[in-house]
């Protein structure tokens, strides 16, 4: 949504180690819990109504840990009433005049020392509006105060790349894919709003990431949606899932963006905290890169897009609170409401403005609304800004200054425009029917000065909000239950041995919620619009044509495995990276860059913080080894209900390039007689896998071994083979192992296969092990010698598996499963759980 959500790692930030050890901020779970987009911490109720019982209570509880209290409580009520008197805004002058007014900073999630720091920066107490702005910008969500010290590894360990035009710290990373073209892509989360109001939460999640891509100067060209839900048969899953899917589709479809892939994962750990992550990819000219810097004193500041309303205000001070369940209904108004039609017009207007070179700088409005956009553009420009809030078009004229500054109304952009070009910009906006208003001017004062109702309510150094926020090195501790979990290995569980048992297990896995056909979901998404979708789900990766003349295109995959990460977050993050890399490589593309969305519990829990640190370290190390840089991403903390956190869930997106998408490698079996060859090594690795979960509801042991060098080799061989026309298809092996890979490849086009499992290995292991670095290669008859020679030349182990053909998946000496029976099992699950529409035929 905004740069503040990026994994910004400014060098000047030395960790200040303000570990709140022994001083847990009891208000934090309620107020600091900065998480999903809306302004977590601006609890305007506290400001408007200081006598509110519950908030008062929280102030009390916060005081428990505070030695010196800010004045006696008596007096607060009367002062608060004066503060709240209509028509008497808390101006800068008033703040100077009344330095000792008590302020509800703790209720807004600020620590005592943070509040003191603000007073030192300003040389006085902040005004009501300033306090609101600091509390938002210094929130976890915006300041990354808990994650910064870890995230900087993504920069420090980044593999050198001459393709990076913009990286961490921008709205999204930008990667050059040809002399003239670049792509930009990023994942973000909108988890808490999507739980409270599934449709709007998901819709605005998509809208927010799309504006990030737009702000880079790119035309958004596709979206993907990694989704995670609780138990599939839980009644609340039936409430949340259909709404989130409809929201993703409703917004993306109406925006005209194809949805080319994603994930649908069920696990009870997400019951109270479903995950809505959204990826957007866009394309731009290498010369068309936009930036957010408000340079050039005298330039105009234009707010373009929807009117500003109260939606989103105070939203996530409620939404991000760690404890869900109580009155989710009442929180609904706090979720922003999306209007994809308005965003579609905003996109076209912005692109026309870019083409005519009419902006100096541009920034989207998302989390933290105007507060973030104004401070970041001014800070990035090293300038100042003077803004008149009375010019901001409002949906509700009664809005207070701090509400206007914190509103997260959707579909808005902030433009910095030279005075001579203002007229043309407004004309373009008019042509697309998008409201655009001049709200201020860039100055050379180095101060952000905001007037409202004729008085100055904000006068701050903008950089102090963006860059001078607190940085914490939170305490970390390995979860105490890990040693026990590691000892409880799935490899020791009873396995199917007879042909009938194996057959039954293959069908059971194929029908399991995490492995079954996902078309109940994906049919609700438009995958055709724009006419450049070469591959989309259920293929291994989404492939988009970028240049119709040359056939240049990109491949994208998003993957994550919370169970692996629960068992070993370092390995889990690398396994997510490895799978996304493998999926992209399986299409014949060359992986180039990485984005990520790190979904975790509360950073105030040392065990969660340890999981987070390990996952970041693993991902940074993995990207370095693979030689592809992290270009940006998003952190989502406080995904927990009460004391129970979700499994650590790093979701990793990998982008690759294809010189000619016509040569992409699909995943389905098609031609009778094609030869099936298994690439890679199969080890006895069942822990953390789908077989252990589906058959034994078991989670324990160690996840599969990570071998990134092998992933790289696998990619090299597939690309080389594709180039020589030695492949009719490739399908990666991952969740569910070889069995699931055969099921998916056969059902893709309704063409069966006959295979013989490798000698000297337990058939159950051969079918269900989730060893990494493996893929199923489908080679045209007659090319198998050339293909295996190529594999050997590169030192990649291969095993002959069988041939394509027939109307069944047949495993010699074990079992046959007719495709009809397999399809019935595979496609029946989601419709049975979530009702109409029935899955696609064929």
């Amino acid at each position: 949504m905004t740069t503040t959500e990026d994994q910004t790692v400014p060098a000047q930030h030395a960790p200040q180690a303000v570990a709140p050890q022994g001083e847990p901020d009891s208000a934090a779970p309620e107020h600091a819990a900065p998480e999903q987009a809306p302004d977590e911490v601006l609890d305007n109720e506290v400001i408007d109504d200081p006598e509110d019982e519950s908030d008062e209570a929280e102030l009390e509880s916060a005081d428990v840990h505070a030695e010196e209290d800010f004045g006696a409580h008596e007096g607060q009520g009367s002062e608060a009433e004066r503060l709240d008197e209509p028509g008497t805004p808390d101006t800068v002058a008033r703040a100077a005049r009344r330095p000792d007014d008590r302020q509800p900073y703790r209720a807004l999630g600020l620590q005592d020392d943070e509040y003191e720091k603000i007073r030192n920066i300003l040389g006085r107490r902040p005004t009501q509006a300033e306090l609101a702005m600091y509390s938002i910008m210094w929130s976890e969500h915006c300041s990354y105060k808990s994650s910064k010290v870890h995230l900087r590894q993504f920069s420090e360990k980044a593999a050198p790349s001459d393709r990076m035009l913009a990286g961490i710290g921008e709205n999204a990373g930008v990667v050059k894919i040809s002399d003239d073209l670049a792509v930009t892509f990023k994942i973000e989360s909108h988890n808490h709003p999507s739980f409270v109001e599934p449709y709007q939460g998901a819709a605005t999640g998509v809208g927010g990431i799309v504006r990030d891509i737009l702000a880079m100067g790119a035309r958004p060209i596709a979206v993907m949606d990694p989704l995670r839900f609780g138990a599939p048969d839980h009644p609340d899953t039936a409430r949340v899932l259909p709404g989130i899917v409809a929201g993703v589709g409703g917004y993306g479809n109406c925006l005209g963006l194809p949805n080319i892939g994603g994930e649908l994962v069920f696990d009870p750990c997400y019951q109270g905290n479903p995950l809505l992550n959204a990826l957007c990819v866009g394309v731009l000219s290498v010369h068309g890169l936009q930036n957010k810097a408000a340079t050039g004193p005298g330039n105009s500041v234009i707010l373009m897009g929807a009117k500003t309303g109260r939606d989103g205000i105070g939203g996530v001070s409620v939404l991000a609170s760690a404890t869900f369940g109580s009155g989710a209904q009442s929180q609904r108004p706090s979720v922003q409401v999306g209007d994809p039609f308005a965003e579609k017009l905003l996109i076209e207007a912005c692109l026309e403005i870019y083409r005519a070179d009419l902006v100096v700088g541009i920034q989207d409005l998302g989390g933290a609304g105007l507060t973030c956009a104004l401070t970041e553009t001014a800070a990035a420009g090293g300038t100042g800004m003077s803004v008149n809030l009375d010019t901001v078009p409002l949906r509700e004229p009664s809005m207070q200054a701090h509400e206007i500054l914190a509103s997260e109304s959707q579909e808005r952009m902030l433009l910095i425009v030279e005075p001579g070009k203002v007229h043309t910009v407004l004309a373009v906006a008019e042509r697309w029917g998008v409201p655009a208003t001049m709200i201020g001017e860039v100055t050379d004062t180095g101060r952000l000065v905001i007037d409202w109702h004729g008085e100055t309510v904000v006068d701050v150094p903008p950089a102090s909000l963006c860059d001078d926020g607190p940085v914490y090195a939170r305490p970390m501790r390995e979860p105490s239950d890990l040693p026990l979990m590691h000892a409880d290995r799935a490899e020791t569980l009873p396995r199917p041995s007879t042909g009938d048992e194996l057959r039954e297990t293959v069908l059971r896995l194929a029908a399991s919620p995490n492995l079954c056909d996902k078309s109940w979901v994906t049919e609700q998404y438009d995958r055709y619009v724009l006419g450049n979708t070469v591959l989309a789900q259920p293929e291994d990766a989404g492939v988009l044509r970028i240049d119709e003349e040359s056939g240049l295109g990109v491949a994208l995959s998003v993957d994550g495995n919370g169970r692996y990460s629960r068992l070993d977050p370092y390995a889990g993050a690398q396994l997510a990276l490895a799978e996304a890399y493998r999926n992209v490589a399986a299409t014949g593309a060359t992986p180039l860059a990485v984005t990520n969305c790190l979904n975790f519990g509360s950073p105030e829990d040392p065990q969660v913080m340890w999981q987070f640190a390990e996952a970041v370290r693993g991902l940074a190390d993995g990207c370095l080894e693979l030689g592809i840089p992290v270009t940006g991403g998003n952190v989502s903390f406080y995904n927990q209900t009460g004391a129970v956190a979700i499994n650590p869930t790093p979701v990793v997106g990998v982008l690759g390039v294809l010189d000619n998408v016509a040569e992409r490698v699909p995943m389905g079996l098609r031609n009778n007689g094609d030869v099936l060859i298994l690439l890679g090594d199969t080890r006895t690795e069942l822990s953390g896998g789908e077989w252990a979960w589906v058959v034994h509801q078991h989670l324990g042991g160690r996840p599969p071994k990570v071998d990134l060098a092998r992933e790289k080799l696998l990619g090299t061989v597939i690309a080389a083979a594709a180039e020589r026309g030695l492949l009719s298809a490739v399908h990666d092996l991952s969740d569910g192992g070889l069995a699931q890979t055969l099921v998916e490849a056969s059902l893709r086009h309704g063409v069966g296969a006959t295979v013989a499992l490798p000698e000297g290995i337990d058939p159950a292991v051969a079918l269900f092990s989730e060893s990494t670095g493996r893929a199923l290669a489908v080679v045209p008859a007659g090319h198998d010698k050339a293909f295996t020679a190529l594999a050997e030349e590169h030192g990649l182990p291969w095993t002959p598996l069988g041939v394509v053909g027939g109307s069944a998946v047949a495993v010699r000496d074990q079992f046959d499963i007719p495709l009809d029976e397999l399809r019935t099992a595979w496609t029946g699950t989601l419709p049975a759980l979530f009702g109409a529409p029935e899955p696609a035929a064929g």
Partner: protein
Amino acid sequence: MRIGVVTFPGSLDDGDARRAVRLAGAEDIGLWHNDPELHQVDAVVLPGGFSYGDSLRAGAIARFAPVMESIVDAAKGGMPVLGICNGFQVLCEAHLLPGALTRNTHLHFRNRDQALRVQSTSTSWTKNFTEDQEIIIPVKNGEGRYVADEAVLDELEATGRVVARYAGGNPNGSSRDIAAIRNEAGNVVGIMPHPEHAVDALTGPSTDGLAFFASVLAHLAGRVGVEA
């Protein structure tokens, strides 16, 4: 040959329709919703999307766009007009075609590769098909269920104005599996699935959609069966 493709605010498949027109060998001309000028086009495509955000009803506002007044007049004069998805909805709202497109029976947006059976080849847009030819083109809509009163449906059937029916499953609950219809003259066709998404084997499930655009070129050239 010049074929116009209208862009309304919220049109999404206009680029795809223009690509299809080019692939069929015609010149694609962009038409703007609030400009009544048709720029001497020989035929017009109303593309898919969510014109005006589907406010009020899908197609209800587009129907009043300045460009539509010109198109309605031209259509009455015999100019070929193809309405795809939202374009079909616009044609119904503009009363160039009878009936209406309503919410899918299952209430979900649905995108799938859909089999159709071509029922009328005597239109400007389907000349290059053969009677009862089965084709596969993508369907993607939330409000694609064709409805009309029984009398109108009977008349459409009796006069051979059902241009295509869904085969192998009805994706949205359309009356009598209707996927596309025509006006009496046969120059105006509305179709819910998307021919423009099936013009390139690389990006579509087939290239069956190309024949719609080849047909209108053949029609305009005054001959039948011209290959695209």
